[in-house]
């Protein structure tokens, strides 16, 4: 897997030195091995800190909203999941495609730092990645054990790019993407209510889920806008937790690519993706399978209709 990084670095250096791009959007080494951070590199020298490994879970596409407003072209490395967000942003005219040089990169799943910590790993001294396994500090894990939730169900493919850097066939998902949604659906309303009450009452309204979300690129969010009628800054009442998360999920419904960033960044580990995935599951079931970000032109399911659509009262099949 380290070979991938070398190829990417080479590509970045070449494009920078040829002047094809003026900047490179990628990931930068951290202090503890796992604390890799997204970064923009502007010189061959700064690329010394460039890294691409199992800790590069962060989705880079949203940064392009601002980056493509600047002068010059930027090289971006897109994992499969990032690419879907990228396409969706292109579709919504949020990224200027002419200013991006896209390189698709292979991804075999990224590690969830929390899961690593649960396994007692405090600092990453060394690691080896294989397609199905990763050895961290000499301890061998199957990928399914420690990858991010989004990676364990990932069915995303490499899409259209200016170039692709990929060596191995992609690992197949460990489980069904809708497993947990289905489990919740099969519970009683009381059980579901109790589940979400516990989860959402932990919410501290830090807005990390919103700010990291590539579908949330509003200039000003309705929750920050005192004129929207629903502005709120803290969950002063249990209602507001629900309001915030329902409206947020609704606003990204049909646009959410299921990149899983919301759950990755939540400091309280609220499985927020289960809200978005519920909408995705419903959309697939009611209006035909739809994957946001698979292309850059199709109409989203909420800006489309058929005359035969089910009535809300028939959605539950009862």
């Amino acid at each position, binding site marked *: 897997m380290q070979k991938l990084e070398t190829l990417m670095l080479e590509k970045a250096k070449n494009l920078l030195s040829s002047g094809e791009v003026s900047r490179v959007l990628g990931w930068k080494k951290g202090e503890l091995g796992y604390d890799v951070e997204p970064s923009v590199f502007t010189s061959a020298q700064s690329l010394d800190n460039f890294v691409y490994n199992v800790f590069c879970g962060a989705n880079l596409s949203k940064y392009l909203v601002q980056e493509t407003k600047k002068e010059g072209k930027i090289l971006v490395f897109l994992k499969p999941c990032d690419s879907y967000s990228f396409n969706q942003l292109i579709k919504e005219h949020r990224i200027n495609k002419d200013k991006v040089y896209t390189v698709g990169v292979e991804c075999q799943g990224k590690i969830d730092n929390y899961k690593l910590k649960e396994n007692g790993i405090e600092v990453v001294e060394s690691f080896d990645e294989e397609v199905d396994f990763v050895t961290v500090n000499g301890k061998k894990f199957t990928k399914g054990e420690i990858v991010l939730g989004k990676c364990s169900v990932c069915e995303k493919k490499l899409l259209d790019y200016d170039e692709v850097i990929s060596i191995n066939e992609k690992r197949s998902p460990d489980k069904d993407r809708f497993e947990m949604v289905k489990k919740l659906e099969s519970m009683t309303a009381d059980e579901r209510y109790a589940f979400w009450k516990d989860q959402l009452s932990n919410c*501290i309204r830090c807005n990390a889920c919103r700010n990291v979300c590539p579908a949330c690129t509003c200039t000003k969010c309705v929750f920050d806008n005192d004129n929207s009628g629903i502005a709120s800054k*803290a969950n*002063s009442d249990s209602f507001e937790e629900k309001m915030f998360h329902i409206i947020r999920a609704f606003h990204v419904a049909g646009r959410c690519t299921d990149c899983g*960033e919301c759950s990755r960044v939540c400091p*309280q580990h609220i499985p927020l993706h289960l809200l978005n995935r519920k909408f995705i599951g419903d959309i697939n079931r009611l209006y035909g399978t739809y994957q946001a970000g698979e292309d850059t032109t199709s109409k989203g399911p909420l800006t489309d209709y058929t005359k035969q659509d089910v009535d809300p009262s028939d959605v539950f099949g009862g």
Partner: protein
Amino acid sequence: MKKIAISNIEKLYNEISSLQELYLPVKKAGATNFAKYENGVDVDIKSLQTVKSAKDLFFPQSEDMIDFKVSGKNIEIKDARAQSNPFVLFGVRGCDLKSFEVLDKVFLQEPVDTMYKSKRDAVTVITLACNNPESSCFCKVFGVDPANPKGDIQATIVGEEMFFEPLTDKGSELLSKLTTLEDGDEKAVESEKKEISQKVEKLPFVNLDLSNFKGENLMELFDRPEWEELSKACLGCGTCTFVCPTCQCFDIRDFETNDGVKRFRCWDSCMYSEFTKMAAENPRKTQMQRYRQRFMHKLVYFPANNGGEYSCVGCGRCVKKCPQSLNIVKVIKKLGGKN
């Protein structure tokens, strides 16, 4: 010195909560935060840290101030500040204890924040020594000894037992009422503390150099070009500020109820683009400016105004929680001195 077997500790919680309300780390839906002890809660003293810090108990995320009741064209104004009964805060780590000192400097200076003070006065703090500090911990840099957190009562886990040492009158008074405790031996505690101190020395961030962060370097630090790169990936979310034990910014907002208005205050974050919105808007227009503000405040402005006291306690929550792995350690390493 008193002690109890950890296997028996529920009895202690029950006894304390029969005397006063007891708040302690509770795990709910996979996340541990301070919460009221009640039957059936999942107490979690094994986790080193709660997600939200203990400041929540004195300076909650959201808190009522005034109620305005409107009837026709009449408005009635009611004081909505909650009166705090004495309560026990159990399981506070050294870093969070240190943060109370920082917060006191903000809230208890004139004009005193009565809402904060009433809760601060009501508390008896039982601290807990950190048997296993984590790689993200750097409290020692800010003068915290995680082996010796000086609360009203200091608790230390040694093996399968927990030891209690009263350090204040309030602590002694509470401890004297607790019949579930038995007498304990100080020696075991001393050796545990030594062990902790040795562990602390091996932590990766234990020797951060802060020497550059001085009032006289203010302008130089402010203008450092590194801020741009340090803040590049910042999303502008409030995670670092909301999990931070010393961040103390708040907003005062009105909520329209069915018969009037509730005025409340709630945490705010200098990382937000809507923060300190003045007549026009936030004077700090870029995320870099906001990011710089947060760290300049913690490492330069606050100490300059508070006798050299930094408003970071090295708890490492931001290290663990920042969605994009930005944190104060990266700032200190870049700008603090010889790092």
